[in-house]
């Protein structure tokens, strides 16, 4: 007697993954803010009755571990009836950082009093209020970062609760856009609910439910096989964040990975305590980065679900910068610290399986937010973007240049769109030559982006690797550190990793992003002639 039919398993796998993808298509196409549409900073997933992920679209790694915690938080805090939908962004109750708003909708099947499954999605909103436009400020408390939404009902029995919505919208700078995005998020969940009901009708509830579990077991098996390929042992690595944006002190992040057979313990003990500035990661983010790295060592495709997590135990000391407690500011934890956590995890694994791990990539998302009043229309604007960098060289080849790496993969906004809508001119958007680390294989080059402001604005830069460069491996040189500058008239001032300031008309802000680390010792240059 077979427990699981390999044919049904494949068919259900295809169905569940396609549901998450269909939700993503709907969200991406119908949302308003460029963050979601152009930059695709969102994730959609399907969950079982306990909040375990069944399938998640291949959207954004930084949301991987965080989505199930959102659903868990909703299950614990909100009694979702048929037609209800919960909303949340509280990083200490299922969220990551405030701009990421998650909607969770239950799916009820006939004859069951509790939700049978959940459909959920999360999207990065361009502004959720707080002390600066774009809601990625250099804050010292979460209360400064924007409106905090605990898990509450946004929709009751199919009707939006205007009290909740108006309350949220009253706290943000661009309420119309927010409302449009939330509508798109609701539409995405509706598609997930509809498809799950169709499947249940076709195959029956018991079978659908059991194949959710079989699919999680399937992913678990594949993860265990991947871990088994890593030699048993303890692998350590540490690296630093430049600073927390308040003090100039480096922040230490350290990991020990214990591999034994087909399971692993990932232990961040020894990591610095949480900081005053906003580089604090909550548990969800540390979990996401860990999941991402272990997902990368699996060759080929595998549905992303909670089964992948089972062979891995994560230890993140409470109150540390990788598991911060309230009221820590967390805006940068999601976008910057998550990258450094990835770097130390990969650095540790490089000691175990050096032939499979690349040198450090740029290690920062280079978050730029600005806002102000558009001189032509008099309307407020808030804008957020991230800038790519160099990818680390691998044991097999050079790293890519000018690309987003690891925890993010968001697209840029076309310069022609940016200049049409905002009082800004992009003077340069090019690769930063020779910023990739030397080596047998070269790290990829970073990017130079120059912004000329055509009206006064408030700007925030949240970046990393301006002090500690991305490491090389196996004798490869580190990538070049990044740099942030402001040019006013003939004067250029270096800004450091994190900065919050006002710009005047005519000011130019220059962001130079780090290159990737090199891999292997560079061969001595041959004396070539006649070659330009």
């Amino acid at each position, binding site marked *: 007697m077979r427990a699981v039919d390999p044919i049904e398993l494949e068919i259900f796998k*295809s169905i569940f993954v*396609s549901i998450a993808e269909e939700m993503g298509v709907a969200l991406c196409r119908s949302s308003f803010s460029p963050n979601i*549409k152009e930059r695709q900073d969102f994730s959609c997933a399907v969950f079982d009755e306990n909040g375990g992920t069944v399938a998640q679209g291949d959207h954004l790694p930084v949301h991987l571990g965080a989505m199930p915690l959102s659903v868990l938080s909703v299950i614990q805090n909100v009694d979702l009836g048929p037609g209800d939908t919960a909303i949340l962004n509280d990083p200490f109750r299922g969220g990551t950082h405030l701009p990421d708003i998650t909607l969770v909708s239950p799916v009820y099947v006939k004859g069951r009093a509790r939700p049978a499954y959940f459909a959920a999605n999360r999207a990065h909103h361009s502004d959720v209020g707080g002390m600066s436009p774009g809601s990625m400020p250099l804050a010292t408390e979460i209360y400064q970062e924007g409106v905090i939404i605990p898990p509450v009902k946004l929709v009751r029995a199919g009707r939006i609760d205007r009290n909740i919505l108006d309350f949220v919208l009253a706290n943000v700078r661009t309420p*119309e856009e927010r409302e449009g995005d939330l509508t798109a998020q609701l539409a995405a969940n509706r598609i997930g609910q509809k498809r799950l009901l169709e499947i249940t009708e076709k195959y029956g509830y018991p079978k659908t439910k059991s194949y959710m579990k079989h699919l999680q077991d399937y992913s678990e098996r594949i993860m265990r096989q991947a871990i088994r390929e890593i030699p048993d042992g303890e692998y350590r690595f540490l690296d630093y964040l430049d600073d927390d944006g308040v003090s100039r002190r480096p922040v230490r992040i350290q990991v020990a990975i214990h591999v034994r057979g087909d399971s692993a313990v990932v232990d961040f003990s020894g990591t610095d305590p949480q900081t005053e500035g906003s580089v604090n990661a909550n548990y969800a983010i540390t979990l996401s980065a860990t999941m991402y790295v272990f997902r990368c060592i699996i060759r080929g495709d595998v549905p992303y679900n909670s089964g992948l997590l089972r062979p891995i135990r994560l230890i993140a000391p409470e109150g540390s910068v990788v598991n911060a407690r309230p009221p820590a500011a967390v805006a940068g934890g999601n976008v910057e610290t998550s990258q450094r956590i990835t770097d130390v995890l990969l650095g540790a694994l490089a000691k175990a399986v050096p032939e499979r791990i690349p040198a450090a990539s740029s290690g920062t998302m280079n978050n730029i937010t600005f806002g102000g009043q558009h001189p032509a229309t008099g309307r407020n604007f808030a804008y957020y973007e991230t800038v790519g960098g160099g990818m680390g060289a691998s044991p097999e080849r050079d790293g890519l240049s000018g690309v*987003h790496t690891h925890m993010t*993969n968001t697209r*840029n906004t076309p310069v022609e769109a940016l200049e049409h809508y905002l009082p800004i001119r992009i003077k340069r958007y090019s*690769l930063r030559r020779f910023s990739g680390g030397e080596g047998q294989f070269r790290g990829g080059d970073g990017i130079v982006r120059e912004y000329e402001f055509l009206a006064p604005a408030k700007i925030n830069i949240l970046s990393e690797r301006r002090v500690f460069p991305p490491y090389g491996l196996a004798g490869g040189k580190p990538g070049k550190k990044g740099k942030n500058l402001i040019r006013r008239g003939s004067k250029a001032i270096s800004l450091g990793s994190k900065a919050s300031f006002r710009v005047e008309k005519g000011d130019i802000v220059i962001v130079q992003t780090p290159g990737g680390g090199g891999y292997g010792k560079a061969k001595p240059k041959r004396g070539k002639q006649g070659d330009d």
Partner: protein
Amino acid sequence: MVRVGIDTGGTFTDFVFFSPTRMWIYKVLSTPRNPGEAIRRGLEEAGVLAEKLDVIHGSTVATNALLERKGANLGFLTTAGFEDLLEIGRQTRRELYNILVEKRNPLIPRHLCFGLKERTLSDGRILQPVEGSEVDGVIRKLKKAGVESIAICLLHSYANPANEEKVLRKLKPHGFSLSVSHRVLREYREFERASTTAINAYVAPLMERYLSRLEKELGEDSVHIMQSNGGCVSARGARDNPVCTILSGPAGGVVGAKEVAAAAGFSRIISFDMGGTSTDVSLCDREMATTTDSVISDLPLRLPIIDIHTVGSGGGSVAFIDRGGALRVGPQSAGADPGPICYGRGEDVTVTDANLILGRLDPDRFLGGAMKLYPERARLFMKRFARRLGLSVSELAEGIIRVADTTMERAIRVISVERGFDPRDFALLSFGGAGGMHACSLAQRLRIPTVVVPKNAGVLSALGMLLSDTIKDYSQSILKRAADVSLAELNGSFRPLLEQARQDLKKEGFEESRIRLLRFLDVRYIGQSYELTVPFLPSYRREFDRLHHRKYSYADEKRPVEVVNLRVKAIGLTKKPGLPEVESDGPDAGAARLCRRLMRFEGRDYQADVYARELLKAGNFLRGPALVLDYESTAVVGPGFVCRVDKHGNLIMTRQKQRR
């Protein structure tokens, strides 16, 4: 005069001929190194070279040059500061979890990308004009590097092309092949415009040489080239915009499907083309669905092309158990060599082997009996495979088919449900070597009421080319709030596009009465960044809300909208031959029956009739399960389906209501 549709495929070059008195088809082996050779040979062997010819040709020259990166030695001119525009792209990586990812292979090396100190603003103002002497310096470098073709894309040239025009004037006397962005694609989004322009420049010299040779052999003015927008264009037109010919082969198939279905009385169809390694699906809701959001070989191509979705599942797709214990089918394919197990040499179980085991192929009459199949060999290998899983051979075979069908069902959902269409409102038009074996089961899954398997399904692409109109697309970004631009102003803005379109079609040889100019707007809610295309009517705003609701399940009539692009689709109506009719007879198909054989569906065995397609007559009626054998394809009439033969010899299968 003889009209000929010619489709150059990977293995065969297909010909469909229409003379005033008859229609016939022909096939020769392709000659990949010089595709023109197979064309000449086919025409010669068909004995038509003495006639006046009107050739419509689907060429793979541009597509292959791009896929294999064998195009022109290319230079790129852009605004200073943006030299790396094409390499940075949208700054994303293709594979999220591949940390050892391979480099994208750029069309243009870094040292041949040049920035010019010039600047246009988004409202069309010229902040800094182009300096002639700077261009001269670049020209010297381009010549020294042996560049033959140049792509030019300056920032905001869609708003005002003056700077691009100036660069063009400077370059013209020097003999380069030139592609300039405001002429290839006058739309905002610099990377997509630059990429489309670069593709054009990359394939232009090759296309030029190929077309010149073809014209020399067949006579000038007698060659038309199929485009990916579903229309054809003169060889001259194809030279100007060779990027329009990329992916034209599959487009021919969709046009063929649409025309054949229309003649059979179906205007809303889903075309389903299942071959050996992959399956193409597309949707026609009276008109062919087009998209401007495609990517080919890692490069965005923003021109309107027929919206075809491809999945790696075909007759040769290999079944295997993956490391997690799931039965996978494809995307690896046994291809033609070694091919499926039942062809005699392969050892990997494929979809074709599964179909054979289930009785959906006749081993003695494959390719009209020209090729022998080995069912006992397939059974032997499948038995080993099945035993490992604790399944019987037929359980495994049905499982493989179900997994493959799930993949194809998903593909059809992408082009229908995800675009806001209900598959139940459409007929499934199936072609390609393997399509007919899966069509009924897919129709059942998606509750599609009717399946059409056309006559001449093996040359549908060539037939489609023959039946295509001339189509040219024009667009221009305007990026204006609807509140700020009146209908009269929009009308005015359309005028230059319409003028250009009319002129071009006249040059293509169309008189006024055969020219149709259709106007569209790309519209979005303010703040969105994807547009929907709606016909330009006074009520365009309402049309937009309606379409938005259909596609995304909500609309907001009060939210202000923005008009992003103007579009003109210019159609030159060609004189199309009517499809030939077949001999008719009563419902009894007994005269076409060859034998009976065992077929298996959902765990049940059936004794099914096997028919010869060429012996079927219009009016014949078959009851499923049954098998209809054609020279190069097999059609399965599923249990619960009935099938009639229409006057053109198409098989029209309908699902009977009483069955689920």
